[in-house]
C-alpha cells in the first residue's frame, strides 16, 4: 500500500513537471492552454470609429521643437480617525512631451513683402509662437500613487505638466531660436527665387538679416 502511494506520487509529480515544461516551451495545443481560461485578461478596448469633426487649412511653419522628460508631483494631507492622525499622500507622474514652435503664416499678408529692386527683396515675418504642446497618453507614466487620487486630480496634474514644459521651453529660448530658423529658411527660399539681397524682419521684434 505504502509503495503504491509513493509510486502514484512520483507519477503525479512527473506529470506535473512535464506539463509545466510543455507550457514553458509553448508547445501545448491551444485547448490545453489553461492560462487562456484562468490567466488574468489584459485590459482591451472595443473597436470604435474615429470621427472626423473638422478639417481646417493651416499655414504654420514648424521651425523648432523642444523635448523634455520630467517628474511632476502633487501631495495632499488626508485625515484619519476623526482627525487624530494625518498622512501625506503623494502622486508622482513622469511626463514627457514636445513643445513645437514656429511661424503662423496665416498672419502674413501681401503687404509684408516689399520688392525694392530686381535684386533686393524685404519681408516681414510674424514673430514665432508656440504652435502645439504635445503630451499624449503614452507620454505619461503614473510612477507613485499614495492614497486616493481621483481621475480628475490626475488629469489636473497632467495639465500642469503641459504648462511646465512650455515654461521650460521659454527658459531655453526656444522662440528666439525658432525666429532665427524661420529667417534662415525664408532667406534660402527667397534667394532661390532670384533675389541676391534678402532682408527678413520679424514683426514687433525687429531682427534683420542682410545677405
Amino acid at each position, binding site marked *: 500500500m505504502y509503495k503504491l502511494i509513493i509510486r502514484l506520487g512520483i507519477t503525479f509529480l512527473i506529470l506535473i513537471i512535464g506539463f509545466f515544461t510543455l507550457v514553458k516551451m509553448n508547445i501545448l495545443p491551444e485547448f490545453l492552454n489553461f492560462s487562456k481560461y484562468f490567466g488574468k485578461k489584459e485590459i482591451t478596448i*472595443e473597436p470604435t470609429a474615429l470621427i472626423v*469633426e473638422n478639417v481646417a487649412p493651416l499655414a504654420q511653419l514648424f521651425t523648432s521643437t523642444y*523635448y523634455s522628460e520630467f517628474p511632476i508631483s502633487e501631495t495632499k494631507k488626508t485625515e484619519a480617525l476623526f482627525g487624530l492622525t494625518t498622512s501625506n499622500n503623494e502622486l508622482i507622474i513622469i511626463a514627457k512631451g514636445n513643445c513645437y514652435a514656429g511661424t503662423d503664416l496665416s498672419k502674413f499678408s501681401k503687404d509684408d513683402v516689399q520688392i525694392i529692386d530686381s535684386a533686393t527683396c524685404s519681408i516681414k515675418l510674424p514673430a514665432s509662437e508656440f504652435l502645439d504642446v504635445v503630451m499624449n497618453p503614452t507620454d505619461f507614466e503614473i510612477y507613485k500613487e499614495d492614497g486616493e487620487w481621483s481621475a480628475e486630480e490626475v488629469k489636473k496634474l497632467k495639465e500642469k505638466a503641459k504648462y511646465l514644459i512650455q515654461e521650460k521651453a521659454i527658459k531655453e529660448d526656444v522662440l528666439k531660436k525658432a525666429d532665427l530658423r524661420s529667417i534662415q529658411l525664408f532667406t534660402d527660399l527667397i534667394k532661390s527665387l532670384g533675389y541676391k539681397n534678402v532682408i527678413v524682419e520679424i514683426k514687433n521684434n525687429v531682427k534683420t538679416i542682410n545677405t
Partner: protein
Amino acid sequence: MKKIFLLFMLFSVSVFFQACNKIDEVLNEDINQSKIDERMKNLSTLGTVEYSFTKTIKSSDEQFYTIGMRQILMSCKAYVKAGVNFEKITISKIDKQNKSIELLLPKAEIILLNIPAEEIKIEIETTGALRSKFSNDEIQKVQVLAEKDIKKKVNDLDILNKAESNASMFLDKWIRSFGFNSVKISFKK
C-alpha cells in the same frame, strides 16, 4: 538565551528598516531630479492641414476570479497636423522675364498627433457591487490603447493628399506675392 534571541531580532528589524529608508532615499533622489532628459531640435515643416477627431473609448473588465463586471466609457478629442518639408522645396524652372516659376514639392507627412489630456473625459463608469473602481493606472492603460488605435486609423485617412493640395494652394498664393504671374507646382513621386 531568550534575551540574546530578542536582542538579535531587534537588531535585525532595525537593520531592515534602515535598509528600507536607504532605498526610499535613493528612489526619492532619482525622482526629484528636475529633469531626466531634454533636447531641442530644428524643424522645417510647413503645416498645411489640421484634422480634428472625436473618439469614444469603451473598455470592460471581467476576470474568471471576479464576481461582476466593470465598464468604462470615455470620450476624447485628437488633432492631427500634416504638411510638407519646407527645406526640401526645390525650384525646377524659373523665368524672371516672363515671371513664371515651377516648384517641386516633397511628399506630405504627418507632423504631429495631439490628444490633449484636458479633452479626455470619463463619461460613464459602472462597477459591479463586488468590484472596485478602475484605478488611475488602469484608466491610463485604456487611454494608451485608444491612442494606439487612433494612430492606426489616422494612416487610413486621406490626410496627406489634403495636406499636399493645401500646400500647393498656399505656396501658389505666397510665390505670387513676389511678383510671379505663373506658378506651377508638382510633387515628387
